[in-house]
């Protein structure tokens, strides 16, 4: 780094420390740009891949109303992906390259979507817990130092609360049902509880990017802080409708005013992260197939647009 670069960097850090916003054409350190491109594109990929476990149940929703609700939710997730690709592109990357990285398996997306959605109750558990954890992670990002990302997240968060509520309402309804329906809801919670807590990432002891991202106001709260909030918020919601959290170590702690909870299975966490989850291959195959099947549409639309242009 030469002297001017160093000075710019110091000014940048001081400016961001005052909680001011950075816009696309402003000078920014390479590391800031790279971190944001990585984070925003991973986030976009997660929204897109996140449509798959739920898309799986659209045709089998138990009523027409549940079907239109799920359809609207999945459509929102597509929208979230698009807001985020749009924000990433303001940093000077090409959307097509980002998508190539997703399709080739080079880019990461949230591991949660590598778990299968086995029953209708999973639509409840996903909305309630997966969208719930996502909201917990995303609300602080509405104040992120990078303007386009913060604005995209504000849109996303505005839409997310419907997602969580529709999920919880599926669980509520099942818990009022037959023994089989109650068992189905409990089974879904059993399978999604731990993966949802893993969504906050590695524990603070092992988190690599955190401190720099905190300084740059990209991250506001640590992984463990947000995870604790999720547990504290969700346990009473489960109890209210008669669901049991699958954690024998879970208990209220008078002294801390928080729930104590068991250790996450970090072996499983790392396993899914490194590509060996139950659905990693299936998800990537589905994305690649959709992309390839749509190739002729993209080409035809462009050919049509060019033909129209030459006629003008």
């Amino acid at each position: 780094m030469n002297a001017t670069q160093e000075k710019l960097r110091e000014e940048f850090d001081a400016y961001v420390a005052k909680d001011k916003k950075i816009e696309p054409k402003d000078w920014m350190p390479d590391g800031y740009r790279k971190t944001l491109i990585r984070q925003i594109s991973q986030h976009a990929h997660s929204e897109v891949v996140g449509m798959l476990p739920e898309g799986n149940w659209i045709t089998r929703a138990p009523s027409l109303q549940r079907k239109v609700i799920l359809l609207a939710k999945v459509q929102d997730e597509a929208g979230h992906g698009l807001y985020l690709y749009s924000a990433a592109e303001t940093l000077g990357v090409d959307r097509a390259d980002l998508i190539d990285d997703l399709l080739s398996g080079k880019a990461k997306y949230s591991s949660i979507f590598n778990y299968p959605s086995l029953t209708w109750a999973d639509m409840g558990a996903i909305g309630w817990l997966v969208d719930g954890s996502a909201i917990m992670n995303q609300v602080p990002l509405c104040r992120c130092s990078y303007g386009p990302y913060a604005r995209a997240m504000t849109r996303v968060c505005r839409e997310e609360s419907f997602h969580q509520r529709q999920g919880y309402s599926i669980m509520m309804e099942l818990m009022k049902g037959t023994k089989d329906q109650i068992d189905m809801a409990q089974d879904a919670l059993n399978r999604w509880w731990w993966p949802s807590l893993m969504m906050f990432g590695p524990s603070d002891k092992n988190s690599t990017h955190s401190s720099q991202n905190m300084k740059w106001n990209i991250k506001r709260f640590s992984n463990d802080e947000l995870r604790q909030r999720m547990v504290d918020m969700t346990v009473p919601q489960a109890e209210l409708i008669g669901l049991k959290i699958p954690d024998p170590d879970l208990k209220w702690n008078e002294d801390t005013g928080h729930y104590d909870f068991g250790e996450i299975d970090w072996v499983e966490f790392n396993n899914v992260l490194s590509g060996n989850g139950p659905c990693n291959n299936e998800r990537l195959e589905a994305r690649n197939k959709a992309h390839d099947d749509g190739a002729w549409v993209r080409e035809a639309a462009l050919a049509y647009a060019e033909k129209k242009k030459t006629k003008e």
Partner: protein
Amino acid sequence: MSDKNKNWPLWEVFIRSRQGLGHKHVGSLHAADAEMAIGNARDVYTRRQEGVSIWVVPADKIIASAPEDSDALFDPANDKIYRHPTFYVLPDEVNHM
């Protein structure tokens, strides 16, 4: 994989949220032509009645001021405080001005 020449161009999207307000930038999207850009903007940015009118502009047609020029462009206004009403101290007896 993707061939650069086959990618749809980028459009910036502006939405008027209701009559009486100006259009506001909301983000961007890719589309083969203007008509498709309007259709996609509707799907991406107005799923909950966020707008009553949409503008789409090819991203490469937008001319923007450069951040380096900010001082030259916007600083001169800083020392012209007499342009603001608070610059003028009036007697207490004067109301409604």
